[in-house]
């Protein structure tokens, strides 16, 4: 240890004007490896007056040279402060990992040492702990963290400092902090700017980062025309409602809860769990279904995944195959329809080629109508049957139309991080013995196999 210090000292004396950068780099190296010794002197000289700035590298070394007698004491102290970077948080987290606790940790750090030794390490540590404490989306916390940096010390004072990367470690740390804000979609505010100016000056890297954030963030704030709420509802029914209104982009569509989730214990002690069934159907879809030819079957298909932020829900659709081209009946033109003006002209002229519009040539693939959609807590045939019978109230034709269930086992690889509760149905292989469901699920799966065979695989890919 001593040897290292001597070496440093020699170096410091040897080169009269090692730039602050080199000094810093050394400091960084040393700090990260063996000796935390240098932190203190470094911080100390940082608070020096302006005049000495230019040569502070060497003067700092000169200053730090004499103390070897009280080294042990110091080491102890520094050790303590180093330890605390991570441990500070762990200590405060013993009670609860909350914002208050996090704030407390920051406060403890800032209060401990007026010179804020080891603040870079502290901030890195804090950034890592933010998610744990649930404060990763709190702008105030970021600002408080920035506040940990000592002010005015890292502001370049002359053109050379400005030209070179002044205090790169600190700047990098602040950029890292801003980047974490960016990743969590937090837009800095004026306080952030003021802090950055105080700490690093007007044209520093963190400041640039801030400016870039402020350039792009507002522009991208509303870039998604279909925003998903930040906090998803925890109730599966509400979540299904949200998901369904999101897919069925029709303001007229009505979401109906066909069955609320319900758990009961019967007299025999069996536990009965009724899954939720939430469906959506628009008046247009009702109309389409009413016009559906009852001799052609309708299909219940699914589950199809829908991701809402980090939650995956699954939905089922009620659909029919498109009419074969020969059977399409176009409504004949009725000349006695419009009382005021002709709805059609009897002309032999078609639209001119040049006026067909500048649309892209898109091959239209007729997918067949989708009549309704639903989400349920349990994707077996019995449950979906209940949905269909619920739909029958508004769509009498469903009573006459053969309904085929073409259910997949469900994409098991799509694990939702938010937990199993949002998964509409447990994968059958891993969880085959849900009491009430076996009767329903069994045949459903059989049906799947049967229908899958008669249905070419490619059509399944198209229908969402």
């Amino acid at each position, binding site marked *: 240890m001593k040897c290292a210090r001597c070496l440093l000292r020699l170096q410091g004396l040897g080169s009269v004007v090692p730039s602050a950068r080199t000094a810093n780099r050394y400091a960084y190296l040393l700090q990260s490896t063996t000796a935390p010794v240098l932190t203190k002197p470094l911080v100390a000289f940082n608070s020096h007056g302006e005049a000495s700035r230019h040569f502070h590298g060497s003067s700092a070394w000169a200053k730090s040279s004499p103390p070897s007698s009280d080294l042990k004491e110091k080491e102890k102290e520094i050790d303590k402060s180093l330890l605390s970077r991570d441990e500070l948080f762990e200590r405060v987290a013993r009670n609860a990992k909350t914002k208050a606790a996090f704030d407390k940790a920051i406060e403890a750090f800032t209060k401990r040492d007026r010179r804020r030794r080891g603040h870079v390490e502290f901030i890195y540590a804090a950034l890592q702990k933010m998610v744990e404490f649930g404060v990763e989306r709190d702008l105030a916390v970021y600002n408080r963290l920035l506040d940990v940096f000592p002010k005015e010390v890292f502001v370049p004072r002359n053109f050379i400092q400005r030209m070179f990367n002044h205090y790169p470690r600190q700047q990098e740390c602040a950029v890292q902090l801003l980047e974490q804000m960016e990743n969590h979609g937090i837009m800095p505010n004026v306080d952030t700017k003021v802090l950055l100016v105080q700490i690093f000056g007007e044209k520093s890297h963190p400041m640039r980062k801030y400016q870039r954030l402020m350039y792009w963030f507002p522009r991208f704030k509303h870039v998604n025309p279909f925003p998903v709420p930040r906090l998803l509802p925890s109730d599966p029914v509400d979540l299904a409602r949200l998901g369904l209104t999101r897919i069925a982009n029709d303001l007229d569509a009505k979401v109906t809860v066909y069955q609320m989730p319900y758990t009961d214990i019967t007299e025999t002690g069996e536990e009965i769990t009724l899954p939720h069934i939430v469906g959506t159907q628009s008046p247009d879809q009702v109309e389409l279904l009413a016009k559906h030819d009852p001799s052609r079957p309708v299909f219940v298909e699914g589950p199809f995944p829908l991701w809402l932020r980090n939650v995956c829900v699954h939905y089922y659709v009620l659909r029919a195959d498109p009419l074969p081209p020969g059977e399409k009946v176009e409504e004949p033109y009725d000349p006695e329809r419009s009382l005021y003006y002709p709805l059609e002209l009897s002309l032999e*002229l078609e*639209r001119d080629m040049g006026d067909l519009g500048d649309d892209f040539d898109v091959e239209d693939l007729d997918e067949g109508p989708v009549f309704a959609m639903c989400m349920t807590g349990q994707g077996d045939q019995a449950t979906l049957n209940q949905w269909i019978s619920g739909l029958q109230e508004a769509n009498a034709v469903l009573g006459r139309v053969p309904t085929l269930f073409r259910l997949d086992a469900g994409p098991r690889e799509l694990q939702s991080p938010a937990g199993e509760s949002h998964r509409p149905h447990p994968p059958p292989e891993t969880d085959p013995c849900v009491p009430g469901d076996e009767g329903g699920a069994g045949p459903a799966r059989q049906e799947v196999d049967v229908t899958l065979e008669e249905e070419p695989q490619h059509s399944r890919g198209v229908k969402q």
Partner: protein
Amino acid sequence: MSLNRIINSKSFDIGKSLLAFNLRYNGKFVPHPPQYRCFRTQARSLAYAKDLFLGQINKAEVFPYPEIGNEELEELNQFVAPVEKFFNENVDSKKIDEDAKIPSETLDGLKELGLFGMQVPEEYGGLGLSNTMYARLGEITALDGSIAVTLAAHQAIGLKGILIAGTDAQKEKYLPKLASGEHVAAFCLTEPGSGSDAASVTTRATLSEDGTHYLLNGSKMWISNGGFADIMTVFAKTEVVDQEGVKKDKMTAFLVERAFGGITSGLAEDKMGIRGSNTCEVVYDNVPVPLENVIGEVGGGFKVAMNILNSGRFSMGSSGAGMMKKLIEMTAEYATTRKQFNKKLSEFGMIQEKFALMATNAFVMESMAYLTAGMMDRPGVPDCSLEAAIVKVFSSEGSWICVSEALQVLGGLGFTKNYAYERYLRDCRILLIFEGTNEILRMYIALTGMQYAGKILTGKINFTTACLSVADHNVFKTPTVLSSSQDSALKLEQNVYLFGSAVESVLYRYGKSIVDEQLVLKRVADVIINLFAMTAVLSRASRSISIGLRNHDHEVLLANTFCAEAFFKNNYMMTQLQKHAPENNDASIKKIAEQILEKRAYVCAHPLDRTF
């Protein structure tokens, strides 16, 4: 088709050189029988507005301006004087508006004057007025919107069915009482789910088991006079077996008496304007209607309805003009007495402009209305539905603007209920809506003309080139239009020529799908409306000069002013009709509307909103 295009586009370039060629065909073209199936059933071989779509001015139809004989005029004046007196003395429009009811004494007075049977033939006890005379009386009845609408609902549409398609027995049975006003008629077509879509009419008439009568079930909405009408023309779906033996639902018109039973009227609607007129829902519950009360044929109700609607519109022009003339008087009085900055209001340019606007509009409305009425009064079965629709659109919009301007002259006073302006404003708003909204009528005007032009363009290519280059700049060289308005006549001619080619290019561009290009159609309709208006004022002014009518120089001034203005508007609109015209914003307009309607709200963020 592409061949046609080439030939046609060439024909424009060499339009003038084709002049001799045209003349040769011109004579041939006039008697050309319209072999197309026109939207109206009976078509007259000659029509003015339709020919404009071909770029042709059918001079014979509109020059000279129609007149009525001296005897007729005297007769008319005999009618007019007492009616005018009655309206000035016995009609309290303010009270009618406030009470939302026309007092029975007023109604009795109207009946005594015979105003309930203006167009009913004299043999049935009516006045037997011609369309022109009817229009003249309409000018006076329009002084009170409620009365005008009540009368119009009664005779312009309510009993028109009997007049147009009724049997002699029906006429004999119903017309006398209707003409005397003992019975009031109503026209029941609109339903909650059916405005202009006849297919969604749900009222049904089913033949009773013994086959002696129909049973009528359903409900009709917004029926003027629905609260007290005794005789109603009701349109209902009946089952008809067509030639191939297929059963079909078709509309049939019925004459339904309230006395048949089973009819209930809802509460009168509380309306914004024409508050004195009665508008309500009428419900039919198993109303027995005897077979002989079918108007026209069973299953022929659609044509009956269309004919009634098409024939009822032309009088709106004279009504609007009547109202405007009264308003101009009232407003001028105020403007010449009120002083600001030691100047009379009438000395301010912006106020003067308003009066000029009102006068021009009134003049144009009047000219168009009487021109159309005169055309309709000609022998034969004239098809003036297009002209009538044009008159309706122009006069309803003109009235609305002018009333608003008149109110503006008075400033805050006009806004109060102390003056009649606000009532006129409220009353005249309905003009843009009923008898076919102006939007729908524009479609009718444009599409009817396009159909006519399209038929000729596709059918007879040789004729097409002929009539399209009719810019034989000789139309008005003859003394039809006198020198003082020669300029305007040239403007009309130029516009008509351009319009013909614009219509042609639009037809070739869009073909059948023109039906869906509403913004294009709107412009076409607006141009044709202006063209017809220009014709009407020119024709009228020419007549006035040549017979030396009082103040004919003022008429010429109005006519020239209007023509000059319309000329530039037309040019602008026809430029917009061109492909890739920078003046044409349709694509953006559509996009805006689509985005708004998708969200069903105004989509912009608030100007005070921030993102950071």
